[in-house]
């Protein structure tokens, strides 16, 4: 398929590996923020092909993994109401909340529909005027434009039975939080290409300067990932730290200004809790006052949710790069994709799932 095969070409992959090998002289820790990139690195066996001096650390860029258990509980509670159809991405289904998952709620009679896009949820709202349709809006900057669009479509057509349960999180505040941790070991970042497709490059240059770390906006195919790694390593070896864009074929300097505008119209930035990590300032998107009728949290009033219970899951340590998934004592024993203890074991962007799926 066009623009896929070329970027999976094994001759280019091997050329890049050789170049990386001849460039690296010291040990470097590089974090790929995005869970999609983690899966690419594991699936294509890239982690085993890199020189041992390069350690890839898998970041918190798995939106499902960082969605607080309380919000999952809220979604479950809503789904069990007889007047609600709860719509979600499939990834969310098996992620455990504090007690059960959405999948288990479905078995208890919850009307839960798996959708590919929030725009489908607006159609369901149109076709089911007697029901309340709630879309569980999980994701980074990449999926926020579609959610904003769904709210505006509902608003424009006067639909009153649609709302979003927003669990949106933002990447730059997470990088900020990771670098502010005095124990951080990260020397450079691969930034998530598709987040920058929307947001552009503007937020990342100041981060690279302030924390003196190379940041390279990178795509998802093996050639992209290896070129991104090479660009980071080249900067590190020269003692440089700036922003570079490996994914130029897709990411422009300004991102998609129309999408940014619409997201800002519907959502505002506030502090948000990240599961396993804790609260990160200005890292979440919340529905603005003007569209409060489309905000499930306001619409359904105070929902009785409990704070996250103590958990044996080490997801926070995995996402901060302190341990690799197989170092978790529960990996592959108490925690498997079938019976997960934590979200990273079930999400298609979770690091534990990647290791389980491709290395077991």
């Amino acid at each position, binding site marked *: 398929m*066009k623009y896929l095969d070329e970027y999976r070409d094994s001759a280019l992959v091997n050329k890049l590996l050789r170049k990386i090998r001849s460039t690296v002289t010291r040990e470097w820790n590089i974090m790929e923020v995005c869970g999609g990139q983690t899966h690419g690195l594991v699936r294509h066996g890239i982690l085993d*092909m890199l020189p041992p001096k390069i350690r890839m650390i898998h970041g918190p860029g798995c939106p499902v993994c960082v969605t607080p258990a309380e919000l999952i509980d809220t979604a479950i509670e809503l789904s069990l109401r007889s007047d609600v159809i709860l719509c979600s991405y499939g990834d969310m289904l098996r992620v455990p909340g504090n007690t059960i998952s959405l999948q288990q709620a479905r078995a208890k009679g919850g009307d839960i529909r798996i959708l590919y*896009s929030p725009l489908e949820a607006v159609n369901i709202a149109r076709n089911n005027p007697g029901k309340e349709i709630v879309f569980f809006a999980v994701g980074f900057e990449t999926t926020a434009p579609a959610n904003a669009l769904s709210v505006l479509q509902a608003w424009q057509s006067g639909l009153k039975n649609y709302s979003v349960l927003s669990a949106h999180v933002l990447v730059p505040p997470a990088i900020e939080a990771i670098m502010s941790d005095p124990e951080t070991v990260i020397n450079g970042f691969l930034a998530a290409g598709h987040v920058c497709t929307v947001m552009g490059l503007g937020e990342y240059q100041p981060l690279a300067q302030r924390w003196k770390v190379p940041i390279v906006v990178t795509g998802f195919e093996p*050639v992209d990932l290896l070129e991104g790694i090479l660009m980071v390593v080249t900067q590190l070896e020269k003692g440089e730290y700036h922003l570079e864009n490996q994914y130029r*074929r897709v990411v*422009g300097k300004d991102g998609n200004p129309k999408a940014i505008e619409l997201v800002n119209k519907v959502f505002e930035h506030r502090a948000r809790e990240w599961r396993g990590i804790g609260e990160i300032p200005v890292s979440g998107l919340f529905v603005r006052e003007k569209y409060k009728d489309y905000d499930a949290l306001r619409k359904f009033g105070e929902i009785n949710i409990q704070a996250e219970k103590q958990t044996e899951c080490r997801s926070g340590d995995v996402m901060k790069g302190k341990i690799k998934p197989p170092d978790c004592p529960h990996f592959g024993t108490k925690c498997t994709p079938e019976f997960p203890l934590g979200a990273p074991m079930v999400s298609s962007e979770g690091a534990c799932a990647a290791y389980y799926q491709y290395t077991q």
Partner: protein
Amino acid sequence: MCLAIPGKVISLEPDFDEVNYPGKVSFGGIVREVNFCFLPEAEIGDYVLVHVGVALSKVDENEAMLTLKYLDEMGELDDLKTPPEKLGEWNEIS
């Protein structure tokens, strides 16, 4: 859900507004309905990236080609410098 693969635009509705602009995109033969509000400049035949039902950017053919060409040439120069027996430690990607 942040992952996307490039698809080819195969149709676009002539009428659209700020929030509704339907079109169709083929991903290696699988056709999906896509909203083009954020990418009104897209034309039939373009390759685009779609996230959860919304087209967000075009694939720039020129950049795609330049990157591949650059990487290919970079490799050529290196091959001359690196003795082949040193490469054996690395698994080749299949």
